């Protein structure tokens, strides 16, 4: 004979949240979850950035909550997939981000250039980016090298947020219809209430950058 297991209202809430988050993700990539690259936001890729969000919000389950923009809603949905926001709830993410917006780039269009002074980050929804860096930004005959390619599901630009220095590389859309969500971390949101959110964010960034450094080391060793 089995006995009923009691679940507290908090545990029930956790289960409903897990389901809601999963549905939000499914709504985002219903066709081919194995290929984030092509499935992340096919509708958005085909539509102008402004139109992308309403097309998605047409699904009742995806309708943005009052006071939340479609871009913010999208960011909340994809937050669990962004290493930057690991361990944070969607609501916590919303507390520390600002200027969340949908962006679309044509081939060769720049997201940011080496030397730029801004801290915007980009989560790539579809398309592909190339990251290029110049050996000497002042020399007349500078050499530009492609240092990496960014596929959908990845984030770019977070290093400038940590260092507050000029961008160390240039990010260019490599294909037609590259779509991304751009956002900034709102450092003014740092308060007693958000201390731990920021702490988690910095831990995540450190961990992510350490991973990138490790990959660079591996590549260097292979050469």
């Amino acid at each position, binding site marked *: *004979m*089995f*006995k*009923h*297991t009691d*679940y507290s209202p908090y*545990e*029930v809430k*956790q*289960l*409903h949240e*897990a*389901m809601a*988050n*999963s549905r939000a*993700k499914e709504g985002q*990539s219903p066709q081919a*979850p*194995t*290929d*984030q*690259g092509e499935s992340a936001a096919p509708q958005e890729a085909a539509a102008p950035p402004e139109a992308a969000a309403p097309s998605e919000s047409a699904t009742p389950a995806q309708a943005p909550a009052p006071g939340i923009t479609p871009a913010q809603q999208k960011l909340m949905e994809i937050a*669990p*997939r962004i*290493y930057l926001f*690991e*361990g944070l709830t969607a609501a916590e993410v919303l507390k520390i981000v600002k200027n969340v917006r949908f962006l679309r780039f044509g081939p060769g269009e720049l997201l940011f250039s080496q030397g730029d002074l801004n801290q915007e980050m980009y989560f790539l929804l579809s398309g592909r980016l190339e990251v290029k860096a110049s050996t000497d930004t002042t020399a007349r005959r500078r050499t530009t090298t492609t240092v990496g390619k960014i596929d959908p*599901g990845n984030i770019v630009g977070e290093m400038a947020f940590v260092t507050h220095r000029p961008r160390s590389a240039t990010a260019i859309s490599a294909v037609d219809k590259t779509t991304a969500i751009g956002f900034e971390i709102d450092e003014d949101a740092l308060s007693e209430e958000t201390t731990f959110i920021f702490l988690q964010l910095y831990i995540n960034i450190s*961990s992510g950058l350490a*991973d990138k450094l490790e990959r660079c080391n591996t590549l260097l060793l292979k050469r």
Partner: protein
Amino acid sequence: MKPEEIPPLVTGFLDKFFEQELVAAQQELDFLYENQFEAPQIDYLKMRRFLVTATNQLKNLDQNLVSGLVAKLYQDIQRIYEYYADFIKKTKMAKLIYVRDFLPTVPEYAQLQNEVTLTEGQKKRFSAIAGQTDRELAALPTPKNDEELAYLKQVRRRNVDATHNFVKAKEKLVVIAQQLKELETAMSAEFLSQYEEYVTNLKEGLEEILNTKSYYYDKLLWEKAAQSASVRKFFHQARIEGDFSTRTFIQYYMRNIDINKSGTSDWHNYLREVLKVLE
């Protein structure tokens, strides 16, 4: 027994027989309905084997992942599943339950069975007396006086009476056996049909409980997995593309199975079936 007396008798028995199961299943279902848990469209029972594998794999990657609510729900599902499997096994023997458990609760049947026990006892006793008097008669010498003749007659009477009663008991047992058989036949169809209905309802109820809980467990497990640095690292290193979900993990598994290796083709076929279910 009148035919109209049979259905309430069967219902009464089955209500009592499945009382604990009915109460437990109803309590679980009430909990699910009251808390607005939704049943999935797909059959999670078919995915159970893989969910267990995924849980173990993720646990190996991150010891802390299957803890708290994840562990609680997992254990809850495991217990209910074990009970469900046991229930399916036990309830397969409908005829045995009918004969062993139900029939003795029918007053007429019980009375007849008592009579069988009683009559068999009498039959045994008369048989013993007949045997004993048979042996005594064979051993008795020809009576030489009136006293010996009277004794011989007394033994003969006892022998005849015992033999007569033995035969009567034997005939009575045949009649009772016939009555028992008629009673068994009369109630069998009604019992088996109602029993089937009870079992089906309970089975469906247990499946709904298991399916719903497994559905939520699947989502919770992968939500936690997506937040785990170790799991994310594993996905990255194994070049697993896609969201953190059972479907992605199955596809990764299928890619890595050597179907030519002995013993793996069943597992491959199973995964393919599960993928179909997920589609």
